[in-house]
């Protein structure tokens, strides 16, 4: 009950943020907050497999990049008026680009998961990283879509009832989708499927011994997580109006993982708070030094050593 009240207050504050930012004469804050929302979805999706399923995927940015590139490539073909492979027409309609991004990311996650999940431990970390790097280099080599220079999206996607060129409207769209995604994930975690996932994290051998074919459940979770991250990427592409292979580089995967750990592994809001903390840190330290990531190391070390539950863990204790 107390939690529900806090969530309500938090949500109200988040909804009011664009007005507050305008009133305070800080409209740039809205852009920063939009980035946090997008990365929050990405980190939350990783948390589903990392925090609840115990699967340490080090290639999660692959789906972030795929979601973003889906929007970019559909835009490019829309702009040129040439269908992809002579078959698939381009589009700038958000109601098409978002579901297609989620679908593409989900299909690729299912394929990569099907192979990676045959391994565990360090091998799993390395193989998910390897697949993400393969995709990274694939897009670096795709000169038709800008190669490593990336691809400009001159105009954000169109959606009935909203004008995404207005940054507060894009912000609210991202906020709505974040809330929807967190709600979905909250239900999943509490469902029968979520119980199985949680059991696999704690003791996979036990799960097999009660008759659970664990591989299928891990694969389903891996696919759902990839879909969520694809959604995050599609929104990011709209926010940035630009996509590049950097979105799926291993550094991005690392960043997303840091957000989860910083915010609190296995918690509902932790990944979003972690995203806010990291983006805020980058903003604050980035103004001081170009090598802001240098300071990230000690901070992360401190969290792992002194607050293993992340920022959410500190709240819980207090």
């Amino acid at each position, binding site marked *: 009950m107390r939690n529900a009240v806090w969530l309500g207050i938090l949500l109200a504050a988040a909804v009011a943020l664009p007005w507050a930012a305008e009133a305070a004469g800080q409209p740039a804050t809205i852009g920063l907050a939009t980035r946090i929302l997008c990365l929050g979805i990405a980190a939350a999706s990783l948390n589903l497999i990392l925090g609840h399923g115990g699967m340490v995927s080090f290639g999660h940015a692959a789906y972030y990049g795929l979601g973003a590139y889906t929007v970019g490539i559909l835009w490019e073909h829309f702009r040129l008026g040439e269908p992809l492979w002579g078959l698939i027409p381009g589009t700038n309609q958000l109601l098409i680009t978002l579901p297609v991004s989620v679908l593409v990311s989900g299909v690729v996650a299912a394929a990569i998961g099907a192979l990676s999940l045959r391994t565990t431990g360090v091998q799993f970390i390395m193989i998910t990283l390897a697949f993400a790097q393969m995709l990274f280099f694939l897009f670096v080599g795709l000169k038709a879509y800008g190669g490593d220079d990336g691809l400009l999206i001159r105009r954000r996607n169109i959606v009935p009832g909203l004008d995404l060129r207005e940054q507060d409207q894009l912000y609210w769209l991202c906020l709505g989708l974040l809330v929807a995604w967190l709600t979905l994930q909250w*239900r*999943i975690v*509490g*469902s*029968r*499927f*979520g*119980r*199985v996932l*949680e*059991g696999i994290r*704690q*003791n996979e*051998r*036990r*799960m*097999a*011994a*009660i*008759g*659970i*074919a*664990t591989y299928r*459940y891990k694969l*389903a979770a891996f696919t759902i997580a990839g879909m969520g991250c694809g959604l995050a990427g599609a929104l990011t592409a709209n926010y940035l109006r630009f996509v590049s292979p950097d979105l799926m580089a291993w550094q991005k995967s690392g960043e997303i993982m840091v957000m989860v750990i910083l915010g609190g592994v296995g918690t509902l809001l932790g990944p979003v708070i972690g995203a806010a903390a990291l983006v805020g840190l980058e903003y604050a330290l980035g103004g001081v030094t170009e090598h802001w990531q240098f300071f990230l190391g000690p901070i992360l070390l401190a969290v792992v050593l002194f607050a293993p539950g992340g920022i959410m863990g500190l709240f819980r204790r207090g």
Partner: protein
Amino acid sequence: MAEPVLRVQGLVKRFGGLTATDDFALDVQPGELHALIGPNGAGKTTLIGQLTGEIRPDAGRIVFLGEDIIRLPVAARVKRGLARSFQIVQLLDDDTALANVALAVQARAGHSFRFWRSAARDPALLAPARALLAQVGLERAQTRVADLSHGERKVLELAVALAARPRLLLLDEPMAGLGAAESLRMTETLRALKGQFAILLVEHDMDAVFALADRITVLVYGRAIATGAADAIRADPAVQEAYLSEEAA
């Protein structure tokens, strides 16, 4: 005799130069409580691992309810009614005792690709789980496994195995580490279960074994050196030399 629940023939498992299971054969009859005894390192746990599918044998046949299951993975064997308890308890330490059993009930109830409805308050899972905890006599249902005593965890291990509704229950040293009173209670719990399904009991506690077993197989260095009724095994000089005397020493 009736068709056995389990028939093992010519089972062999080698770990490098060590033969942990050596041309092993075993029948378990319907409703029978069959004890498997033998000194430490005889290969009892390795045998259970092969029966459940965790360990792949090098040769041999395992026929369960008339079906050759040697190629089936662990979960598929459990679905057919082959459940086990672990010598070293394997439970979900962060969850309560009740949640552990409820998850096992859920696993038996069909697939778990259900993504929306809350499982934690589902009476279809909780009611059978509570009944199982009552059956084994575990009172602290809402206590986290990490906070349970060793004895309580051994009892919980049994409840989780029972949730699978076994046709054959493989128990790997259910009394290991229990105090005298706890051992007696476990013996009574097993006696109450006896006859409902077949049980293969691996156990060092000879009082419990002789109190419960219909037949006993003695395993030494991976070989079954004797199989027979409890009294015959107790009297067998080869068995006494190989195992029972060592136990007494």
